[in-house]
């Protein structure tokens, strides 16, 4: 529970802000790019929902979390390593990897899907608010659009990606932090490496999972 709070609930704010603005920008861009009356305006809602659901929320938010949560995990474990707290656990007869890393991986894999679902809702809501405030598209059409052609499998796809990305974020960052050697400089390096490597791994896995699950 403590890990879920630290790794998940503490990220609710940033995820919410990014999601609302992401959805709003997507909807506005879509409205500006539809310049033919042949395409119905509910398309804006539909495309916004699809983009958010399939890619923006699971991948972009996971990359944001790789930065926020990944650096937190790597620097926490790195500091514990250089201040001999991990050695202290080992001396007590506790397996430090199991004790410190496993709860972080499990917590991330449980809490991240909730964050991503929240992100999807807020992003779609952000698009709707953009329509209200700019008057670029009618609210009713947008709502009709976000309800159209919905496939439950898309949610399964998005959440499957999220769980894999959560595992990558927690494990790659934890590895970098756990094997830190040296002092403050190396903790900083471990933190940066954790973010960089987990982001690269997320992008690669995104491609592989998309091919596997949607092809």
């Amino acid at each position: 529970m403590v890990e879920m709070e630290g790794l998940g609930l503490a990220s609710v704010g940033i995820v919410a802000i990014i999601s609302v603005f992401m959805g709003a920008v997507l909807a506005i861009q879509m409205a500006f790019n539809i310049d033919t009356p042949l395409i119905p305006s509910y398309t804006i809602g539909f495309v916004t929902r699809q983009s958010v659901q399939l890619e923006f929320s699971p991948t972009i938010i996971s990359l944001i979390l790789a930065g926020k949560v990944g650096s937190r995990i790597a620097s926490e474990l790195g500091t514990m390593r250089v201040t001999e707290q991990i050695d202290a656990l080992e001396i007590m007869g506790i397996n430090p990897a199991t004790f410190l890393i496993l709860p972080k991986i499990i917590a991330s894999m449980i809490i991240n899907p909730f964050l991503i679902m929240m992100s999807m809702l807020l992003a779609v809501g952000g698009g709707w608010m953009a329509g209200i405030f700019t008057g670029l598209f009618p609210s009713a059409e947008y709502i009709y659009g976000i309800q159209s052609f919905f496939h439950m499998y898309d949610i399964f796809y998005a959440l499957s990606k999220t769980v894999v990305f959560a595992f990558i974020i927690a494990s790659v960052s934890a590895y970098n932090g756990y094997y830190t050697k040296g002092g403050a400089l190396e903790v900083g390096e471990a933190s940066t490496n954790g973010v960089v490597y987990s982001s690269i791994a997320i992008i690669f896995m995104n491609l592989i999972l998309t091919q596997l699950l949607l092809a």
Partner: protein
Amino acid sequence: MIEGKNISKSFGDRLVLDNVSVKFEKGQTNLIIGQSGMGKTVLLKCLVGLLEADKGQVFYDGRAFSKMSFNEMKEIRQEIGMLFQGGALFDSLNVEQNVMFPITMFTKQTQQEKLDRANFCLSRVNLENVNKMYPSELSGGMKKRVAIARAISMNPRYLFCDEPNSGLDPQTAHLIDELIKEITDEYNMTTVVVTHDMNSVLEIGEKIYFLYKGKLWWEGDKNNILYTENPELQAFVFTSELTKRLRPVKKIGG
């Protein structure tokens, strides 16, 4: 008793410990001394299993530690208390939780029993009214004392201290030394202290091993270290003005 036999350890091409054999008796404060970089901490880490020696074996009361399975090693480790150089207190836990941590992990005591034990250990190291403070709020000496309290919370048979006085003022350093000695006598523990502090050597060194360039160079106790004829040890011991004044004057003509 803890015994290390023919321990060697290298890091890459650099030989840090070269065939070192040591024996630490029960109920004694055993010291490993030497200049920085001579392998003291590496020897300590080989003894407790934080580093794996390239050669040699470690025995805890006759039990071959190096050859043990993970679970057997775990049992021995629960009999070990260790005081790290920086204290190694868990930042996210307060003083009380730090001291209770090993008890929580390895016993089924009630919360009240654990609290009582933590309070006893804290009072044993002369700390009061710090239970709810976090490590970041403590001074260096207090951190060391909390770390000692945590180390003795499970009634260990073996106590290891890595430079317990580093970074402390002489009075606090003296207090820590006294505490280590008292606890060793009280619980009849086998205590091993790594230090380069000559005050500690002269106060608590019941058995002293001097390491030089990764080798065991001299062994003795606090009573005969000042009379050593070993030039490397002399250079180490009589560095400060204070210890120079303690240097025995040789009688002319023997």
